[in-house]
């Protein structure tokens, strides 16, 4: 089976079209401009939504874009990837009486305008003489860097990959978030004078101690790492993929690697869905998701689930992998699974899946994609000698300061159990709050802070 380059391109082009001007203005006029609006409270970055929508209806596109990006430096990406049903749109007062305002789409309309018109929306602050190293150029790091630059800090971002943007650039599928959107946001930060050094792996190319010795403060925003191993036989076989690496490969260059293949995805979070829909778009013949719990426990959003179903992805609930079976060439040829049942767990925890003995069966497959969460950057966290729980850096919940007062942390690197979902928008907000706490510590609360040194 062969998939043409054109077909690949088409498959990976942004699925959703932006609102057309008339649609956008009609929708903007529908907004009630609520006072103390619930949508603002539901947005983790607190975008003044009624205000930006009013500005759209007033044909003040610059003002609308600035309102959004002021509160959320990744406002263009968030317009595409935020689970708006759970956030702003879920809080819209029109949910009960009509249908909620399409806040995400309007946000995209305004930020697309800013991108198209190549607007420079913010300026860096007057230099305050302090320096900050930001480790990791994802949403959290970039957001912190932008705010720090606006506060007048000299900011250097260290990024391991060849481009900044983190998962926005490499991890979220192109058909939901085209790379150029994430890169435009990176460029906006760079234009504030932030020095973004790519291809630098902190901990290897430059050590924690070097950064701590050179900069007044460090922001750790390295996100999470690879998908963990399944801990079953056959994981080393050719045809076993890490979901995040698979998505990343499609962000760098498109290939028909999976065309005609039968793909099994393990896990049922949003990453699993992305890996599954990605596989479909790479030309896979059949894609199914195996999850050891049932649909109720699935962590993917409802709209993600619907999206996968509409892409023809099949779901097998209460199914856990036992081993991956290879052929003589060391290639995946099948996966052996076992059926599960759920047992009530201790209060507050999710139901516990237990195997049903003797229920093993095999699914023929050419590829197995692991999507069971992400591991942590434990060695790096330890090199910084920060307090942590299994790699989740411990912070002060208000200031984002770690156990080392010179180090702050934001984004997925502090994301842990019981904290909702790992989302771009929360990473952005944490970056902003960490930046403000640094400004407070180094400038506002410092008797001679802010003076040129």
């Amino acid at each position, binding site marked *: 089976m062969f998939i043409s380059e054109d077909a690949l391109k088409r498959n990976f082009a942004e699925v959703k079209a932006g609102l057309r*001007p*008339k649609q956008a203005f009609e929708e903007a*006029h529908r907004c009630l*401009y609520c*006072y103390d609006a619930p949508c603002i409270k539901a947005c983790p970055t607190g975008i003044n939504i009624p*205000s930006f929508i*009013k*500005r759209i209806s*007033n*044909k*003040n596109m*610059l*003002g609308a874009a*600035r309102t959004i990006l002021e509160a959320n430096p990744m406002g263009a990406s968030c317009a595409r990837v935020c689970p708006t049903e759970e956030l702003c749109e879920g809080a819209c007062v029109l949910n009960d009486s009509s249908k909620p305002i399409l806040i995400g789409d309007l946000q995209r309309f305004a930020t697309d305008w800013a991108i198209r018109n190549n607007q420079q929306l913010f300026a860096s602050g007057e230099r305050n003489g302090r320096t900050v190293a930001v480790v990791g150029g994802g949403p959290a790091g970039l957001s912190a860097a932008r705010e720090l630059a606006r506060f007048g800090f000299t900011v250097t971002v260290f990024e391991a990959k060849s481009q900044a943007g983190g998962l926005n650039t490499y991890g979220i599928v192109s058909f939901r978030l085209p790379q150029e959107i994430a890169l435009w946001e990176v460029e906006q930060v760079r234009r504030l004078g932030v020095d973004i050094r790519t291809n630098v792996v902190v901990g290897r190319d430059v050590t924690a101690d070097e950064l701590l010795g050179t900069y007044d403060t460090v922001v750790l925003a390295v996100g999470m790492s690879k998908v963990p191993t399944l801990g079953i036989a056959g994981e080393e076989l050719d045809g076993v993929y890490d979901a995040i690496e698979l998505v990343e490969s499609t962000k760098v260059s498109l290939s028909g690697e999976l065309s005609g293949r039968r793909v099994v995805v393990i896990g049922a979070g949003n990453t699993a869905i992305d890996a599954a829909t990605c596989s479909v778009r790479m030309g896979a013949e059949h894609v199914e998701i195996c999850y050891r719990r049932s649909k109720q426990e699935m962590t993917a959003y409802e709209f993600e689930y619907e999206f996968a179903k509409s892409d023809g992805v099949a779901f097998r609930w209460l199914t856990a992998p036992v081993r991956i079976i290879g052929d003589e060439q060391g290639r995946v040829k099948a996966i052996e699974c076992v059926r599960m049942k759920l047992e009530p767990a201790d209060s507050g925890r999710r139901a516990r899946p237990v195997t049903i003995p003797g229920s093993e069966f095999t699914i023929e497959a050419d590829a197995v994609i692991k999507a069971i969460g992400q591991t942590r950057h434990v060695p790096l966290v330890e090199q910084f000698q920060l307090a942590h729980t299994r790699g989740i850096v411990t912070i002060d919940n208000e200031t984002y300061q770690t156990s080392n007062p010179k180090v702050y942390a934001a984004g997925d690197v502090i994301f842990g159990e019981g904290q909702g979902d790992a989302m771009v928008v929360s990473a952005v907000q944490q970056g902003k709050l960490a930046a403000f706490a640094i400004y407070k510590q180094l400038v506002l609360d410092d008797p001679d802070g802010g003076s040129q040194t």
Partner: protein
Amino acid sequence: MADLRINLAGIKSPNPFWLASAPPTNTGYQVQRAFESGWGGAVWKTLGDPIINTSSRFAAVHFNGHRVAGFNNIELITDRPLDVNLKEIYETKKLFPDRALVASLMVEPKREKWHEIVKKVEAVGVDGLELNFGCPHGMAERGMGSASGQQPDLVERQTYWVKEAARTPVIVKLTPNITDITATAIAAARGCADAISLINTINSLAGVDLDSWNTIPHVAGKGSHGGYCGPAVKPIALNMVAECARNAKVSIPISGIGGISDWKDAVEFLLMGATGVQVCTAVMHHGFRIVEEMIDGLTNYLDSKGIERVSDLVGRAVPRYTDWGNLDLNYAVTARINTETCINCNKCYIACEDTAHQCIERAQDEESGASYLKVREEDCVGCNLCAIVCPVEGAIDMVEQPAAGVPMSWNERQAAIAKLSMKGA
């Protein structure tokens, strides 16, 4: 960033957006909140001998699902004692020295009454006075408000009395309930007013309830006419401002009022000769915070046009406003339908066919069989109706045609005919 400061006849404010004298400026608490939101100035709710207001006062006209296309009220001037208002004006001015705080006044048309109130309000430190000759209901029945504002001689005389006592600039607020607005504007100028503001509300009845047959609003089963304002009155107000601005006998600064809902409306008033604007209904609909949208939109507009000061906009469109007799009768536009953009709703077709000049044709593409609309340009008179009813931006353009002859207005034509017939005689 553009400079938004204005100076209206000596009254300065950091931006051109003032609250009009109305419920939003009832109390010190409200005006202070407004100033915190960014309003550049406020005209205090009209002071005078306290009155009693009715309960059930406002009504609105909603248009096709949009709330408050127009707003109607039967409220009178302040119902709070003068000394309470004066104390709050004093406190507010002290807290916000950089904002324009203007007192609106209305008393019986007697010289001593005007002198007395002018002295009292100036003593608490207002930046200017606005004489309310416009309130169309209640007060008018007592010889005040629009009752005096409809008579040029009364406007002139009372303005003059105020000017005798006043040390701060005096703005005369005009009623639109008059045939020729320039008559009272000129009277105000003759009475030595420093500026005029317009418009106050227009006589109106918002509606009648189809079941109870009561007026809307009604007070215990009876209603009386109210004053109309809000988006619906903007064109009326804009014309009146423009008429005053282009009249050489008025020649004093103008504070524009009437239906201003966003920065775009404000720019139109400035272009038509207003130095600043006042807003009431939009604030009653959305709260003080609406000014943030106004300031931001105006700033971005000026910056995008490379205009440094908002004051540079004032009056720039006035020379383009003239009498009908001066319009070029040889200028022509015709409608052109862009088939690509057109959504084939046929609204333009039926509008032209039934109510204009029958020059839009329903055609069919020979190859595809798709129907499309086409203007017979030679029959199009350029009335704009099709473009007005078209729901899609860019689907119908009114295209300028090469001039059919040298420019010639009705006045020029009449003059030429007169000359010819003189020669012939």
